[in-house]
């Protein structure tokens, strides 16, 4: 029993072929869109490479780029096939290619789905990459004279200004690291020496943050040093002060930003996947209806198109058998001692009763 059969007249078949030709070209455009989404994602991740510890994040854009390119090629071929399918003669050219093409495209659409799902499942990796990356970036903030790290200060400052965030989880992260380089500390001053002695590692820690943490919306000029000292500033209470510095942590800000991008990209890829699947279904219907036309012999007649000739279970079973026997084609039949010329009993079918015809009388 065929799965989802539809009857196709000649005009319906031609229309289907033309529509599929147009849809395949649209799919080429969506393939280009997939490719450009992959490139966009790759550029966005590389822009903040300094702030993310190297991880598996690059696999998502790479996957999208590959899938986009393959989609273009497959749909270009599909367009060509559907263009030729209007004419039954030209279809004969593609007859043998079409079924493998449909199977390949089916597995390809599965990979598009995998790409979409990967976009949604990146949370954990992203969080980990950001935590480690930001922690290191803040630690090396002061090393503007070390090659390889000299632009980290600028990167972190521009990040905090652009994303309106401060520190890893909050501004207090800056209190725990030394972000003022020793080159700019006057070691002869008592205050500096006291601070250096106040902790085990000899770091110059203070309750101050870099200028990039300053909140633009604050009504008063920015207080970035002696933040926890209420008496150092007039009319200031750091417990209630919310507008002075950015309250959000940069990890959360970046995570939200990338999650938004990923979700939008994932949604677009899902829509493209649905579109590809529908185009594939149309091509399958076209292929089966044209094959039935060839089977019936008359190019103008009506024919059935279906997704699968038998039900799912039977098709699965027959395919499984084919695969099983695939391995046996070079095995020898030992019952006839390997000689293929020995007479074998007839195995032909003679209609529903299976009654072999009487042998013809021989002329004597």
């Amino acid at each position, binding site marked *: 029993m065929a799965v989802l059969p539809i009857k196709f007249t000649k005009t319906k078949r031609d229309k289907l072929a033309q529509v599929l030709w147009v849809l395949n070209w649209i799919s080429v455009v969506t393939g280009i869109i997939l490719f450009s989404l992959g490139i966009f994602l790759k550029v966005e991740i590389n822009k903040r490479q300094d702030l993310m510890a190297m991880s598996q994040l690059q696999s998502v854009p790479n996957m999208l780029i590959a899938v986009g390119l393959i989609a273009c090629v497959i749909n270009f071929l599909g367009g060509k096939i559907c263009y030729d399918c209007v004419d039954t003669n030209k279809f004969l050219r593609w007859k043998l290619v079409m079924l493998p093409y449909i199977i390949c495209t089916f597995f390809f659409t599965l990979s598009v789905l995998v790409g979409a799902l990967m976009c949604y499942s990146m949370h954990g990796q992203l969080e980990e990459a950001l935590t480690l990356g930001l922690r290191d970036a803040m630690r090396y903030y002061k090393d503007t*004279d070390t090659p390889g790290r000299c632009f980290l200060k600028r990167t972190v400052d521009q990040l905090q200004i652009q994303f309106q965030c401060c520190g890893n989880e909050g501004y207090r992260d800056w209190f725990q690291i030394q972000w003022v380089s020793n*080159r700019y500390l006057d070691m002869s001053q008592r205050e500096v020496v006291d601070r250096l002695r106040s902790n085990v590692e000899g770091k110059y820690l203070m309750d101050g943050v870099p*200028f990039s943490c300053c909140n633009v919306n604050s*009504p008063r*000029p920015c207080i970035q040093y002696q933040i926890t000292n209420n008496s150092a500033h007039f009319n200031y209470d750091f417990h209630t002060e919310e507008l002075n510095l950015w309250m959000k942590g940069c990890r959360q800000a970046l995570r939200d930003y990338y999650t938004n991008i990923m979700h939008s990209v994932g949604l677009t890829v899902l829509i493209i996947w649905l579109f590809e699947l529908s185009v594939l279904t149309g091509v399958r219907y076209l292929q089966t209806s044209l094959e039935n036309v060839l089977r019936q012999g008359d190019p103008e007649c009506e024919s059935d198109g279906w997704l699968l000739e038998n039900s799912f279970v039977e098709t699965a079973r027959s395919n499984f058998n084919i695969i099983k026997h695939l391995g046996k084609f070079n095995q020898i039949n030992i019952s006839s001692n390997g000689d293929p010329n020995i007479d074998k009993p007839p195995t032909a079918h003679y209609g529903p009763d299976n009654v072999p015809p009487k042998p013809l009388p021989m002329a004597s």
Partner: protein
Amino acid sequence: MVVGKMKLTFQKRVKLAQYLWMLSWFATLGGAVTFTLGCFLKTELRRRGEVMDNTDIHCVPNTLMIVGLASMGINYFASRICQDALDPGRFPRWKTFLKPFFGCSVFFTTLMLISVILSYAMKGSLETSLKIGLKNGIRFYKDTDTPGRCFQKQTIDRLQMEFQCCGNSNYKDWFEVQWISNRYLDFSSKEVKDRIKSNVDGRYLIDGVPFSCCNPSSPRPCIQYRITNNTAHYNYEHQTEELNLFIRGCREALVYYYMGLMNTIGAVVLSVFLLQCSVLASVRLLQTSMEAVAGQENVEVDSEGYLLEKGVKETFMEYVDPVLKLLWMNQPGPLQTTEHTVTWFLCFRLHSGTPRPHTGLKSISIIKY
């Protein structure tokens, strides 16, 4: 004296009509592009409208938008005219329309050229407007509790960070202004009292700048207070320090930005102007050559086309007189109306020497006879 005479065979006329049709659609596109550029420029100017004192500079995008719309209309009609030009049955219905059409087209095309010139000529006005606007912005920076000025601080901070600039001409502008509000000054402290007494107006002036002047590319943490005091900071000399704060003034940065925008837009509009001129000249040639064969039995003969039947001055008078007649309403004869116009221009020039803004038209009504 005929201007731009040209002999056109039938084949040439047909070819001219075809190319003209395509060219006029390109010119319509050019008109749409001009309109879009005008809108874009206006949006950009309005975004920083808070640091500009007046809106004189807005005449450039306004002109561009008007010219863009007019150009789309002109070129649409040009394409319709050339579509009908080769059909002797349909061409005569455009007869009465053509004179005002050409008058309007020349006017708007000249306006396009004027807008390009304006975009270069308004640089001085823009600079003055920015100077006053930024001065006020810096002065009212501290007034975050005064309604109408509470967002000045935010505007100036964002501006300085985005354009990487500090102050009006440079960072020293902040030393002359009290940019810390009195609400945050401890008047019982000796230092505050000394500073306030140190100048006539009783302002709290410091050699410090807001945090938005800090340069992220600086290798050391930002020094924003006691900038001119070398001993206050270790290993610091403010005369040689270039990376600590932004060196450029915001006025210079904004003028540079807007001039860059207007230069690009000017180049694009100039090319649209050239396209438009060629379209108009071709329509005129086609029209005059078709008129020469109008009414004849055989339309496939050669004919002559020209740009202007009379000289430039006479054609100009011919077009301008009806317009002026409409404006003055009771004046005799075309030539005398033109004489009055000339007198009007001379008087306006004389009177515009004195600094009285809106008396131009009033003085005319006294002088005209």
